[in-house]
Each structure stands twice: as structure tokens, then as C-alpha cells.
């Protein structure tokens, strides 16, 4: 983990609201593992102080290139989407504790919702030797991205959209639930919006599936110094604030308390 000036190799629109950027970041590409993120300084606009955390979407160890996929939701991601290739991006990374695969894992389910699909591609690429089943949830057909990549490394891809314009209509967690009733898995790795994670926690606990989830929280430093990025980890009787940036972003599902969140 360190600070780099990473040149933008390409930056283009993938789907409605979603962009993919490839940057030249050898050192990060060498060390990064799935679930980790980079912390990006938005160039140009000095009124935006904070870096933006974005998960690693994939790496190419040979070329030293790193992909991210980001959704344009505010000023920072909007500014990112305007950047042309050749520009140097000030980034920190790889940051955080990513997913890890316990020894003996054979069958792996991976689940992503919306921009939470992005880090799961890196998971699939890294652990393609496992029996991977992918569960991908999108808002609508127009926001679907990287489906081909998931098809490459997955035995099967389950896809849902909220509006039914592609795949199953409804929540991807329902699809997972159905599937789990037919076939269990050794491990589930997931990333997505809070309501999805909440539904997921219920489903995996009912089916008693080991599950790791990647959390989001507003961040400052990204390196453990400012303790602003808290999440609640533990059980109802005894819990602690943990730092999403350095203790996470990946935690075991049963440890994550999302109460009070909507």
C-alpha cells in the first residue's frame, strides 16, 4: 500500500451511469487481491477534498494494469467520468482487507448488486479454478455490465433486473434463495447496497452458508488514521466499531450489524 501517480490507459462508458477505467499501476496490480480498493483523489476541482474509494474490478499482472468500474452518482464520480487517457491519477492502494477463501473451498457463489458487481469480477478472475456460480442484480437492462466476463469464469450466471428488462424480474437475493434450496455452496462472497445485504444476511443464515460481504461507508484517510469509516461488528450483546478501510471492507456476514440502516 502506497501512494502512486497512475496514468489513465482508458476510461469509457460501460452501461447507463457506469464507467470503466483502466490505469497503469504496476505495484498495486502486483499485490492486490479481490475485495481491496483504491482511494482516488479527484483531480482538478480543489473544492473536493476527500478521496473516493473504488473497489478493484480486475488486474492484469503482466501489464501491471488495473480496472475499476464506477457508477456516476455525484460530483467526484462525475469528474472521474470526464477524464481523458494519459492523465495521471493520484491514488492510494491496494487498501483494505479483501475476500479470502478458506482452504478446501470448492464451490463458490458470488453475488453482486449494482456497483457491487464490480469487485466480484476480480473475485471470479482470481479464483476461476473454483466452481463459480455468479448472481448478478441490476436495476435494468441498460445498467448491465461485464456479463461476458462473468460468463467466462462461471459455471452459470444468474441475472436479475428490478424492472424485468433482462433476466429474472426482482431481487437477486430471491434468485439466490431459490438456488440455495436446490444446491448449497461452500462459500458465498457478496457486495451490494445495504437493503440487499440485509436480505442476504437473512437468507445465508437460514441456509447456514458461510458468507463474506464487502461494506461501504463514507471515508476519510482510507488508511486507519481518522476513524470515520465505522461499521458495527460483533453481536447484539457485544459489538465494536470497526474501520471499513483497514479492518474491512470485507467482513463475515454474521458479524455485521446493519440495524438502524435503511
Amino acid at each position: 500500500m502506497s501512494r502512486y501517480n497512475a496514468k489513465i490507459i482508458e476510461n469509457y462508458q460501460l452501461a447507463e451511469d457506469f464507467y470503466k477505467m483502466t490505469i497503469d499501476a504496476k505495484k498495486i496490480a502486483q499485490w492486490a487481491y479481490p475485495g481491496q480498493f483504491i482511494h482516488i483523489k479527484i483531480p482538478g476541482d480543489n473544492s473536493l477534498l476527500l478521496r473516493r474509494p473504488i473497489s478493484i474490478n480486475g488486474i492484469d499482472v503482466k501489464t501491471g494494469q488495473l480496472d475499476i468500474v464506477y457508477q456516476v452518482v455525484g460530483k467526484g464520480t462525475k469528474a472521474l467520468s470526464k477524464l481523458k487517457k494519459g492523465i495521471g491519477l493520484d491514488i492510494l492502494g491496494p487498501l483494505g482487507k479483501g475476500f479470502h477463501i478458506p482452504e478446501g473451498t470448492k464451490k463458490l457463489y458470488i453475488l453482486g448488486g449494482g456497483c457491487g458487481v464490480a469487485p466480484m469480477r476480480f473475485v471470479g478472475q482470481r479464483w476461476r479454478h473454483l466452481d463459480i456460480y455468479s448472481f448478478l442484480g441490476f436495476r435494468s437492462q441498460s445498467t448491465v455490465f461485464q456479463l461476458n466476463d462473468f460468463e467466462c469464469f462461471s459455471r452459470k450466471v444468474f441475472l436479475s433486473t428490478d424492472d424485468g428488462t433482462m433476466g429474472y424480474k426482482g431481487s437477486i437475493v430471491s434468485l439466490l434463495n431459490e438456488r440455495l434450496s436446490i444446491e448449497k455452496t461452500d462459500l458465498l462472497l457478496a457486495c451490494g447496497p445495504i437493503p440487499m445485504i440485509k436480505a442476504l444476511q437473512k437468507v445465508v443464515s437460514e441456509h447456514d452458508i458461510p458468507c463474506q460481504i464487502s461494506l461501504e461507508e463514507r471515508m476519510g484517510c482510507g488508511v486507519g488514521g481518522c476513524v470515520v469509516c465505522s461499521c458495527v461488528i460483533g453481536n447484539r450483546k457485544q459489538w465494536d466499531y470497526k474501520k471499513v478501510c483497514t479492518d474491512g471492507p470485507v467482513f463475515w456476514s454474521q458479524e455485521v450489524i446493519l440495524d438502524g440502516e435503511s
Partner: protein
Amino acid sequence: MENLNLGVNMAGLSFKNPIIAASGTFGFGLGYEDYLDLNILGGISVKGLTLEARKGNPPPRIAETPSGILNSVGLENPGIEYFLDRTALPLRQFDTVIIANINGNTSDEYCHMAEKLQDAPIDMVELNLSCPNVKEGGIAFGTDPKTVYSITKAVKRHTSQPLIVKLTPNVTDISQIALAAQQGGADVISLVNTFLGMAIDARTRRPILNNITGGLSGPAIKPLALRMVWQVSQLVEIPIIGMGGIMTGEDVVEFLLAGATAVSVGTANLVSPTAMIDILDGLKNYMTANKITNVNELIGGLITEGGNKL
């Protein structure tokens, strides 16, 4: 750049340069070694300590505002005992001034903590009379000159460590508060803590911080902080540690000119863990370009006669 003298003195201690990591923005320093050599720093003010461990406020604890950030950490910390047992010694290995930032709910708590620090391997105690996030008292202490005077005086009786008193800027007349701290026996005044602010998400119609309000820091507050440092320096005799939005070497110079003897860097550490290296380099470059060999020449060096023409 070889012959620059960057050292400053405060309360009988020498700082190798005037740059101090601001409390709460740099953890306990440890863990930053991947990004910067702690030995290059003038000092480190550790994250705010309380008598007992504190969980702090629920997230979200940070919001971005134009050229600023709001935080509502609420003094999450492992408690002073943990600091003494686990953190103080490892930190001591580094050749930099170590400052323990303490926060109490009562005058007695401050005294109690100061006592515990009396023989600790630290160099200075910083009395934070200003954290805006602790409803139990923090903010009230720092807004009343009489209270500032009496707490400072009480704590002084319980420690022989040099004492910094850190003030809240959320007051009508900062000079009077600073004067009270000096009269109470403070060795150094630290200015400023964060300004009480608030951010709202128009889309969700909710405050962004779970705590509703939080403390504003960063470049947005620099003009306010500079003004306070300048005002206080006109009145008090003891040295001032200035802070508020320092992001570059020139910002450091501005605070020194306004009357600070040293500065703290806070928000910049949240932007980049290597920020203080760049700021120190910037200060050196400024001095070289402006033919200043001793940083002490800058302290209080603001020229106020004749205005500032284009």
C-alpha cells in the same frame, strides 16, 4: 536547501521543524510508516484520549463540504490506560515531540488524566477544551474564559509536563479565552479546533452526519483560523500552535506570519497520508526561494503597514 534552520522552541522543548500532526487525524502515528518516516515530523499530537475507552458516534461520521470536511467522530479512542500500556512506548522510539491530547467531562477528569501522564514517555500534554462532538461538556469548557482559566490552573497543579491548551473557535472573542488559558498557566495555546457545522443531503432530506452536526475543518476555515491566530498573537505572550486548513508550505508560512510558532496539519492527513512530507518540502522551497535561512524569522512577521498592493 542544506543550510535551512527549521527548528523552533516552545515551552523549553525543541521541535526539529514547526510541523505537528493534528490530534485525531493521524491516529497514534503508528501505521503510517509505509507512507512517511515519523522522524521527519516536528511533533505528533495523538488522537484525543479520554479516561475510559469511548466508542464514539454512529456513522456516517464524515461529510465533504466545499473545500472542507465535517467530522463527528465523537472521540472514539481506546482510553488512556490502553494508550499508556500499548502505544506510548512504541511511539517513543521516534525522534519527534509526542503530545498526548486529553479530553475530560469534568475538571477532575482532566486532572486525573494529566496525573496518569505525569511519568509517561511523552513530551507534552494537550488539553482539548474544544471538541464540539461531546455533548457532556467539551464545548462548554472552552467557551467560558473563567472555566478555561480554572481547568488550566487545576491541571497545571497535577502535572509538570509542558501544557498546551487547545481552544474551540466557536466563541465570540477568542482573545479573551486565550488570555484566560495563559493566566491559568498554559505554556502553549493551540488554535483552532473545528467549527460547528452541518451538511444536508437535499435528495434524502436528511443530515449527512448521523450526529446531525459535526466539526468543520480544512481549507474552508483557513481564513477564520488565521484571523484568530493573528488576534491572539496580539494579546498573549506564550507561543501559539496554529492550524486550520493547512495543505501547503505556503499555508504554513501564512500561519507563522500571523504569529504562530508552530502549526498542526489535520485534514491534509485525511487527504493524503504523505501530506506532511509535501508540506515540509513546500516550506523549505518557500524559504529557499525567499532567502530565509531561519524559520523563526517568519514568526509574527506579518507586515501590516501600508496595505498590500497589486
